[in-house]
């Protein structure tokens, strides 16, 4: 964090794997606002291999959009003047595969898992996890580290008073691999040692001369304690000082940004944490990118972040289908499509990632794929967002009732209060109800959940801006970035079609009352506009849980949004009829209920 800044015009870029986004933020009449935004294809890959070409292209488009001169001879005009230049430039980046790390530990489900969480928390993609107890031969582990060519390695293992030999053995594997960095060059791979402090000297001896060793506090000083912050901070420092400068074009980006460049997941994660604090709520955040999908959660104040490396909407599209299978994608389409056509469509998007859906069919197809990419990434998130394993703790009756047992996922279907979606496919969805359905269908939270949208795709920019100018980031977050989509009430049950699940009564502040019923298999919408707040009373039938427990009435203030208040009686998990025609007809009703696509395209079950 720097001293009190005096900036009035800030330029921020986010270099994604597919698209480079640029936004201009300005102080006007004492308030920060979004002055303009533009984008251009990212240029980190062959044949250009210079990220700055895409950055400059995006900035030139921003100049056209805002009429403000920002570049002069390819260099930024600084400081900002009345109608030209900027005071501050900041950037995030996930291009070129982002920060790719290997992590190593002694026990896969303990120190190695903590190391994985630390790396993911720092916004890295974890390419592999090496541990003493993995099933591979020594030589395979060594070969794997050698082949990975990671940007950085995080080595952990052992509690501070524990034995040395096992973590020392893992260090020896790394030494034997003599890892080389991804972008070549003469520099050595940084290895962060965050393990047993008694092993530090040995680890230094083993790795000296082969890699650059940096020592931080132990990630698991005791079995009961996880201390991720020092390792995360060191990862970030090394990312800026040692890794980014190797990537094509990045030294210029770092120079422009005066070192304020962050991995995109880290910046977005900061905003999700800010949102959770601001709203005092459990939050799930999503950033659906071209190559990766990042999931963030804050539950009970505890923050988790995962980056699913091969689940995304362009380069990784074919892999999303390979993992989900065509049937899982096709169930979200209101029309017939041959597997072959779906597969070609995916593969073409993979090789030409910057193209846009032009017809409604293709838009629906992209949304179907997005649902599966988010669903798979959320499943991945659940595997890491959980309590510590290996903890032998004494638990009181209260603990048993309110805390998940060790090693269990911390997110449950009913404890998500707020969901925020970001990323091209979500932020640029032409209708708000499309964005809401993408998030709702893939995450399937139960109880009462409010949905927000990063409408301008600004979270990465604001996340990095918050480092320098937190007030500006918060101002713009609520004024220009976040849009409320609405609140969803979804009982946790497996209902029969047409079964009455709950009676819902909404009392508006002006005094009006609206009533509806939550019915099994049905999706319905009640008007409750952006900024409107109302008191909702839901009285479930016996055995149905709308957030207060089975059969228990709930009375709560709910917020409206561009879609409104949604009554989701589809049950959890959402089930489709076995008959494909009935399934499609059901889907068409759901889409029509929220007016997700033009009615003509949904008539007769789509085209």
């Amino acid at each position, binding site marked *: 964090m720097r001293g009190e800044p005096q900036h009035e015009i800030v330029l921020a870029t986010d270099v994604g*794997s597919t698209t480079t986004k640029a936004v201009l933020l300005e102080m006007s009449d004492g308030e920060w606002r979004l002055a303009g935004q533009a984008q*251009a*294809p990212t*240029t980190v*890959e*062959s*044949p*250009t291999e210079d990220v700055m*070409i*895409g950055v400059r*292209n995006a900035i030139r*488009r921003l100049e056209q959009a805002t009429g403000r001169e920002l570049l002069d001879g390819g260099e930024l005009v600084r400081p900002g003047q009345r109608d030209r230049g900027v005071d501050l430039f900041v950037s995030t980046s996930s291009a*070129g*595969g982002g920060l790719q790390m290997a992590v190593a530990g002694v026990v896969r489900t303990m120190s190695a898992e903590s190391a994985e969480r630390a790396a993911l928390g720092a916004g890295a993609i974890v390419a592999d996890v090496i541990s003493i107890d993995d099933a591979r*031969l*020594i*030589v395979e582990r*060594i070969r794997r580290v050698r082949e990975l060519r990671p940007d950085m390695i995080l080595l952990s293992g052992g509690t501070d008073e524990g034995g*040395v*030999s096992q973590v*020392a*053995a893992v*260090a*020896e*594997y790394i030494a*034997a691999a003599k890892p080389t960095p991804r972008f070549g060059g003469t520099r050595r791979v940084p290895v962060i040692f965050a393990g047993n402090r008694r092993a530090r000297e*040995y680890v230094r001896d083993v790795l000296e001369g082969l890699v650059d060793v940096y020592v931080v506090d132990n990630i698991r000083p005791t079995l009961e304690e996880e201390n991720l912050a020092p390792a995360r901070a060191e990862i970030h420092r090394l990312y800026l000082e040692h890794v980014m400068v190797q990537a094509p074009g990045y030294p210029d980006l770092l120079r422009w940004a005066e070192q304020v460049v962050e991995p995109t997941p880290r910046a977005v994660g900061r905003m999700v944490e800010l949102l959770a604090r601001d709203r005092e709520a459990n939050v799930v955040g999503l950033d659906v990118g071209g190559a990766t999908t990042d999931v963030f959660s804050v539950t009970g104040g505890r923050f988790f972040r995962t980056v699913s490396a*091969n689940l995304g909407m362009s*380069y*990784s599209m*074919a*892999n999303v*289908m*390979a*993992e989900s299978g065509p049937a899982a994608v096709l169930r979200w389409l209101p029309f017939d499509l041959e*597997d*072959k056509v779906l*597969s*070609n*469509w*995916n*593969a*073409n998007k*993979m*090789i*030409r990632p*910057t*193209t*846009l*859906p*032009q*017809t*409604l*069919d*293709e*838009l629906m197809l992209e949304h179907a794929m997005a649902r599966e990419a988010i669903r798979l990434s959320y499943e991945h998130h659940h595997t890491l967002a959980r309590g510590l394993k290996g903890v032998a703790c004494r638990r009181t009756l209260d603990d048993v009732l309110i805390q998940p047992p060790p090693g269990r996922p911390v997110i449950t279907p009913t404890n998500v209060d707020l969901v925020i979606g970001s990323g091209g496919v979500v932020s*640029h969805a*032409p*209708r708000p109800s499309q964005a809401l359905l993408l998030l709702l269908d893939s995450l399937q939270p139960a109880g009462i959940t409010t949905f927000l949208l990063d409408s301008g795709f600004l979270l990465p920019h604001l996340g990095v801006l918050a480092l320098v100018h937190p007030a500006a980031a918060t101002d713009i977050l609520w004024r220009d970035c976040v849009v409320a989509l609405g609140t969803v009430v979804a009982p946790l049950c497996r209902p029969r079609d047409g079964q009455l699940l709950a009676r819902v009564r909404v009392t508006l502040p002006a005094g009006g009352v609206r009533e509806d019923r939550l019915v099994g298999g049905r999706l319905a919408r009640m008007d409750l506009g952006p900024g409107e707040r109302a008191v909702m009373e839901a009285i479930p039938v016996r055995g149905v849980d709308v957030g207060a427990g089975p059969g228990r009435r709930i009375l709560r203030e709910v917020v409206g949004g561009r879609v409104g208040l949604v009554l989701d009686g589809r049950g959890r998990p959402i089930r489709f009829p076995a008959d494909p025609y009935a399934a499609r007809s059901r889907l068409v009703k759901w889409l029509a209920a929220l007016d997700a696509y*033009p009615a003509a395209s949904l008539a007769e079950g789509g085209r």
Partner: protein
Amino acid sequence: MAVRTQLKITPNALLRRYRNLALPGQVLVDRDEEVTPDTVVARTEMVPGDPWTVDITRELGLRLTPEQARRAILKRVGDRVENQETLAQYRLPGVLGETRTVRSPITGTVEFVSYAYGRVLIREDARLAQRQVVVNVARQLDVWPRTIGMYLRYREGDEVRQGAALACAPGGVGLLYSYTPVAGVVEHVDRRTGTVVISRPTLPAEVDAYFPGRVHELVPSLGAVVGTRGDHVLGIFGLGFENHGTLRVLVDSPRAELPAEAVTPDCGGKVLVGGAYIGFEALRLALDRGVHGVIVGGADHTDLERLAGKVIGVGMTGQEELSLTVILTEGFGFMPMNRDLFDLLAGAEGSVVSINGTTQVRAGVVRPEIIVHRGLPDRGGGDLPDRVIPPAADLVPGTRVRLLRKPHLGQWGIVVRAGDLAALETEARVTVAEVELENGRRVAVPEANLEVH
């Protein structure tokens, strides 16, 4: 902003390639020698040099601290070690302390030493690797030789993987295991001596010239640099590794489909050129009839997966065990081939072409390549010129473009006007260009969906 085509055509280029073995062997060509694609440049025949793990603590029958292990293990990483040479030695404490020794079971190079665990990993010298390895199971399990059959987990003829538990028997405390030091086949179980003989597969390895050309330079023990002159094309997506053959064009238009009937028995050994599409039946027939390669505008993704026998999820290919190499020049589905490329290939009918389907769509992009041989280079010729193509292109009226998305997928046209904001059928508002298609119809297309050629 439109994108530049990734299809890259470089006519009449001078090319040079390293054609090297992975391990040292015999170089079979001379400098300035003319070679054909089949000419073997270098060859070696060897048993794969497996890494052997020697568990020093187990062999010594001692539990050592890292410091003790550092003193006991006499070899260091990078040291060469001969078969039966002393690897480690440890003298037990006391005036009459016994000295225990561990010897290397093979000749090779020490690749890894774990002092923490007391293990040494030796990379076997592939040229000296023993074809058969004898494992003394009876001694390792401390059982009578004649009873080893009771403890073995594999029978004669079974394949074993390196590190697999070959046999296991109850020991003083828990179970004792005998692990296979190498991968191979259980050749013989000798109940008289209590040993098991494992035969290791030999691996002949050779590298050919890949294209017709001239040896420019020799690389001792590994291979050579071979040069040629030809048209060089980078496609969009491929399947299969290096291949070559005589070019045969089977269609008369870049918009035509390559029908299965056209793949006649005499296509064996050839590289076939199609137009816009090839179906699975034609691909299967091409494989069965020994066709070496297919160059075509498009094919179905699922058909390529069926042909490769694997899921193509993240766009990395080239390692498929296929005798047929497939190169897509435009994309997936029905995709008319670029007219310039089609004309180039049609004009080269009968020429020798070399192709390689290896593709990587991101993180160090690799595109499949086609080399149409045009003659031998002069001695000491130059390298392939490298043109840098900007990935984004501003559209101006008159620019020839291809449309990349439905409803005009694969069609060609000329830009009439560009830079307007307009709403699409999807209701999204984006920058569009007005394009006149080849049939004279004018359509508005997002600039992002146009490819400039």
